């Protein structure tokens, strides 16, 4: 059995030897260094971009500006509002205005200083709720009030349902701008050979990059090749189009010489961010412990360009309701332009912000009503067969098991030893549960080649970014085909070689690509049986393929021998898996997702009342995993999510001054280190009898922030509603609480 084994990642040896071929290592013949010149203004007309002096710098080969671009040089997942570089206007500090291709970084940097940019400043706005006020500056004339998307969910009569409530709670929770901070930055190299374009991109979505480049440059997709080596982390930050169009446009001016762009850490902070969000929840409950209604209003700060937000904000709507039986639900999920860098997916996309809101409010309600927060949750959690606010019936949901397992593991453990502190240490416990949709409509294809020596090669456009997807796919292929794991190779992504896949994101690969691999395996087996039937002198329908052989009742033939005796050196087959779900755009009713992502967390914290310092004593993370492909990698996903989630919970916040990020480095923007991890961290994976393949890339992340906030209130009686939960905020809240 290849599935269920904790095999090491396929290229583990390369990983511990530092030999993974990340794109930062790529060297091509005659390759030039790319450098981006960025806006220093948050909002301005571009009066002049003069490159005359910069072009004189020895070693500078070409400079790209808005003047080089055609009318099609704009992109965006649904709203094509973002230029490859700015044309006549800039809308955030850091927006690309020009790009330089040079023989050396020194030359490029010298030239960058000599590009003469003249701005005519315009007024700017940085907060989403300010941007929708009348009189606020407009970023894009087509959207005068800066609202570029407004997703609505309308289920039941909320006004009537609020009238039936015994108590109504209304709270607003905020999440600040944050940055994905993969240690490998965004990297892209591009080369034109006549009308053929090759792009090496650190992206999670090679086929999306190919399609968008085809639209921008007006060439057929088959003229574009996108190659993606292993990534040094992505976390959503590489999930959509980033610097690929700019790199390709730059390379168009260098007479066939390739150009490579590697962003600096500071540039990462102006390339993509987590959506800052303000979420107001109005929730009606009855004294019997049930809900009557919930109204959710979310303002997502999309930044200066819509980017992937028109895809993410409708998902955020679905993900904002929570995993509880609530008869009447209205949601308004609103995307707003501001003069900030464009926002995109940040691991646990949109769910991190929404779970922060609804799971924090669960404890606010429970405490005020005198209910136990755990019992209150367990009494209301969805079970299979319940109807969700979209009207869809829920299948295969395991929220109760997830929460119970997390709570059980934490509560069964004995108290931890005292930890060093300045003042009095107070301990508390908290919980969080998450319900998340995945990509509603997407497709994965896989191709397999079986050689006459038994080697199985899997061609897939799933991106390996550390999550272990290639290893998991090899395990699924080995098991499905009944061949040894050691005989499986994985190739891709390379759009010239590997078949279509929508994206490696939203925890979809194990499920979607996994099922495509199963389909391809079934096709290979069918072909093997057809080829073996004459050899075994048995009708195909009486044969079966397993353990590397095709078997009749008495006789069998190994796969490799079937190929040889048919004079074949190899055989290839493909498989595909697709899903399509759709919601009514006016009411949000319909089917939102092919399946639900489910996770929970239970945490014990200690708060030092003298310093406000928070110590995470123990954390139990549980996720619904369907069928676990690789237990150790599953545990790494669960653990990694908790640790990643502690960043936005306790420390991550991009600071701004006039639209300029003032902490664009890992000294002033801390991310969790080994000193920040819980003293005890336990991961639980829930499996189901059905044995469906599920993704688990984000399940345990969104519950972290509310679980910690809930534990803090349990410990010291203060409620923090604005992330991150810093020691300063705790101390301030304690001070306010002690002053009557």
């Amino acid at each position, binding site marked *: 059995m290849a599935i269920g084994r904790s095999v090491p990642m396929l290229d583990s040896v390369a990983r511990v030897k530092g030999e993974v071929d990340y794109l930062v290592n790529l060297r091509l013949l005659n390759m030039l260094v790319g450098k981006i010149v960025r806006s220093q203004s948050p909002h301005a007309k571009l009066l002049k971009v003069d490159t005359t002096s910069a072009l004189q710098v020895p070693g500078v080969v070409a400079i790209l500006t808005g003047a080089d671009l055609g009318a099609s040089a704009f992109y965006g997942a649904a709203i094509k509002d973002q230029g490859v570089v700015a044309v006549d206007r800039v809308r955030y500090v850091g927006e690309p205005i020009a790009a330089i291709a040079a023989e050396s970084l020194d030359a490029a940097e010298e030239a960058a200083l000599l590009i003469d940019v003249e701005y005519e400043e315009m007024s700017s706005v940085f907060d989403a709720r300010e941007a929708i006020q009348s009189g606020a500056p407009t970023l894009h004339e087509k959207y005068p009030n800066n609202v570029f998307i407004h997703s609505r969910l309308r289920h039941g009569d909320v006004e009537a349902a609020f009238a039936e409530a015994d108590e109504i709670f209304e709270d607003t929770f905020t999440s600040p701008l944050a940055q994905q901070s993969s240690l490998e930055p965004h990297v892209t190299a591009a080369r034109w050979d006549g009308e053929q374009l090759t792009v090496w991109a650190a992206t999670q979505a090679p086929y999306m990059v190919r399609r968008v480049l085809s639209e921008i440059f007006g060439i057929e997709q088959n003229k574009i090749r996108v190659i993606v080596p292993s990534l040094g982390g992505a976390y959503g930050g590489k999930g959509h189009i980033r610097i690929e169009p700019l790199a390709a446009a730059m390379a168009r001016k260098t007479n066939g010489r390739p150009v490579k762009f590697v962003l600096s850490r500071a540039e990462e902070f102006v390339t993509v961010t987590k959506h800052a969000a303000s979420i107001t929840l109005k929730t009606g409950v009855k004294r019997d412990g049930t809900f009557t209604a919930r109204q959710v209003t979310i303002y997502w700060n999309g930044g200066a360009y819509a980017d992937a937000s028109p895809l993410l904000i409708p998902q955020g709507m679905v993900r904002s309701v929570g995993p509880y039986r609530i008869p009447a639900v209205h949601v308004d999920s609103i995307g707003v332009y501001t003069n900030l860098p464009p926002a995109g997916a940040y691991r646990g996309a949109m769910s991190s912000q929404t779970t922060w809101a609804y799971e924090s409010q669960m404890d606010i309600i429970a405490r005020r009503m005198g209910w136990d927060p755990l019992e209150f949750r367990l009494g209301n959690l969805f079970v299979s067969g319940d109807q969700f606010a979209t009207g869809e019936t829920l299948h295969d949901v395991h929220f109760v098991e997830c929460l119970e397992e997390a709570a059980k593991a934490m509560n069964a453990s004995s108290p931890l030893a005292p930890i060093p502190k300045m003042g009095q240490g107070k301990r508390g416990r908290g919980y969080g549960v998450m319900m998340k949709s995945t990509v509603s409509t997407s497709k994965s294809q896989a191709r397999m080649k079986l050689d006459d020596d038994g080697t199985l090669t899997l061609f897939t456009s799933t991106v390996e970014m550390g999550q272990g997807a290639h290893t998991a796919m090899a395990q699924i292929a080995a098991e499905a085909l009944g061949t040894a794991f050691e005989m499986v190779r994985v190739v891709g992504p390379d759009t010239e070689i590997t078949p279509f896949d929508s994206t490696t994101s939203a925890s979809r690969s194990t499920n979607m690509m996994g099922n495509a691999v199963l389909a391809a395996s079934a096709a290979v087996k069918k072909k093997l049986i057809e080829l073996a039937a004459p050899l075994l002198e048995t009708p195909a329908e009486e044969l079966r393929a397993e353990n590397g052989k095709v078997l009749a009742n008495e006789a069998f033939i190994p796969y490799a021998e079937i190929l040889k005796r048919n004079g074949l050196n190899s055989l290839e087959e493909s498989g595909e898996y697709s899903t399509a779900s759709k919601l009514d755009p006016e009411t949000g009713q319909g089917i939102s997702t092919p399946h639900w992502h489910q996770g929970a967390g239970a945490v014990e914290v200690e708060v030092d009342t003298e310093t406000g310092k928070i110590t995470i004593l123990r954390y139990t993370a549980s996720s619904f995993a369907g069928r676990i492909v690789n237990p150790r990698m599953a545990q790494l996903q669960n653990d990694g999510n908790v640790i990643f989630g502690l960043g936005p919970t306790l420390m991550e916040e991009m600071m701004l001054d006039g639209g300029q990020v003032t902490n664009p480095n890992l000294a002033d923007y801390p991310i969790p*280190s080994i000193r920040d991890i819980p003293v005890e961290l336990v991961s639980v994976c829930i499996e189901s009898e059905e044995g469906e393949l599920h993704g688990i890339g984000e399940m345990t992340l969104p519950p972290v922030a509310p679980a910690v906030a809930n534990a803090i209130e349990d410990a010291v009686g203060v409620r923090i509603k604005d992330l991150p939960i810093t020691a300063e905020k705790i101390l301030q809240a304690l001070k306010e609480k002690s002053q009557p």
Partner: protein
Amino acid sequence: MILSVNGSRYEVQAGTRTLVEVLRDDLNLVGTKEGCGVGMCGACTVLVDGKPLSGCLVLAEQVAGKEILTIEGLSQDESLHPVQQAFLEQGAFQCAYCTPGFVLTTIALLNEKPSPSDEEIREYLAGNLCRCGSYQNILQAVKSASATGVKHHT
């Protein structure tokens, strides 16, 4: 200037470039990564006379005459250094961009303190960041390497 790396001596024109730039660009020792450029993430960690140092914070000039060890210097053939072996066995990485830095810092730790406590490990590795969050397994890998009790200095 002469740079002594992994037991070999290299003539380099370093100018005002940092050690990590010279290692990667001139010597093609690309196992060392630059993650943040300000000495916070540890992806560029190398050992200089046995002590971990952020390659982005020193000019190559400053380490002339000193013995520099990079990840490439740990295993010249197919075999792995015991610390690399422990990281592999414990699955102590995901994207692995940070792994060379962690491996080298661990070697320095175990040379200084062959049997570190959990707290000492956390303290010593605090300057190496893993955004994927593999810290639990890294902790296990350090303890497992420590338990093998072999001489770690190469």
